């Protein structure tokens, strides 16, 4: 794998995480449990869409095949997406949405905290801008984990169910492959082993404060980072890409 290919995959992985999670969260628009949270969760969706856009613009530049960020977002099929399986999981209810967000934010925060030191100045600049947003996302989702986990019996049970169900998708967050090795060697990417203890500490602390039981590590699902996805991604893409595919090059 050349450096250019590795970098492209690395940036698409980040961009796809942001795009797919942003798309998922935007499904809440107009359906939030209360007006204030409807706005809050769609704000986060918009942050993620903005991050996806910056990253995909950069990916298009690296790829240098005349594609732009819209073509990268709307004209690739599922196997070309490199997002982790966690972010494509359905919203289900508020407990699932918050738990999915919290697991991802905990990873994403420490990832960005390190990525700002990247030797790739463009990527470091994108990371610095995103870090402020991601810091707020983690604060937001942690707060809700604690509120609902340590809330009523019903909210506690719903949160525990969500934690148990989504746990198997968390292993992949810190998994590395050849792409990571090349990026770390070049000083561009983040060594996920370095952020692992920080991530685990946050998960442990917040789950404990939320009075939630940390599941026992069993089988962890994987595959997103190499393009093998759960069935959910196809449905997301069908929703998200329909207009561009039915009316190519259509603009607002």
């Amino acid at each position, binding site marked *: 794998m050349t450096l250019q290919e590795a970098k492209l995959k690395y940036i698409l992985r980040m961009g796809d995480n942001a795009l797919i999670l942003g798309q998922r969260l935007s499904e809440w628009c107009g359906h939030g449990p*209360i*007006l*204030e949270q409807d*706005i*809050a969760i769609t*704000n986060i969706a918009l942050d993620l869409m903005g991050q996806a856009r910056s990253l995909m613009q950069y990916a298009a530049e690296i790829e240098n095949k005349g594609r732009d960020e819209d073509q990268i977002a709307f004209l690739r099929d599922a196997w070309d997406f490199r997002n982790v399986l966690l972010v494509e999981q359905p919203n289900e209810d508020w407990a699932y949405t918050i738990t999915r967000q919290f697991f991802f934010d905990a990873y994403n925060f420490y990832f960005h905290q390190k990525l700002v030191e990247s030797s790739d100045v463009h990527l470091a600049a994108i990371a610095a801008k995103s870090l402020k947003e991601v810091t707020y996302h983690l604060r937001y989702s942690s*707060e809700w984990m604690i*509120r609902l986990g340590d809330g*009523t019996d019903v909210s506690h049970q719903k949160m525990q169910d969500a934690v148990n169900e989504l746990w198997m998708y968390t292993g992949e967050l810190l998994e590395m492959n050849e792409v990571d090795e090349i990026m770390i060697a070049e000083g561009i990417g983040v060594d996920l082993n370095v952020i692992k203890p920080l991530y685990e500490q946050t998960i442990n602390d917040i789950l404990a404060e939320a009075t939630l039981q940390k599941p026992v590590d069993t089988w962890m699902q994987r595959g997103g980072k190499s393009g093998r996805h759960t069935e959910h991604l196809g449905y997301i893409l069908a929703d998200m890409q329909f207009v561009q595919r039915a009316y190519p090059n259509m603009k607002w």
Partner: protein
Amino acid sequence: MKKDWSLWEVFIRSKNGLSHKHVGSLHAADAQMAIENARDVYTRRNEGISIWVVESKHLTASSPNQAESLFDPADDKVYRHPTFYDLPNELKHI
């Protein structure tokens, strides 16, 4: 247990040196959530650098029925405005 979140009034300071201004209200379970909700609902377009929230029930308002006795007496007291000083022509922007 109370089922409905209480109402909070939100005050935003748009920049240093200006005072906080009332911008609206929202629902939240406690003060911390009220601040976060206010951030999301009222500062999305760069409106502020500082937020105050106060639970609506803690505000005491003047009664509209008393408006006449409270405010009308000020109508005819022009001498309370500093408009009677002779200013030198060189002074501007006062």
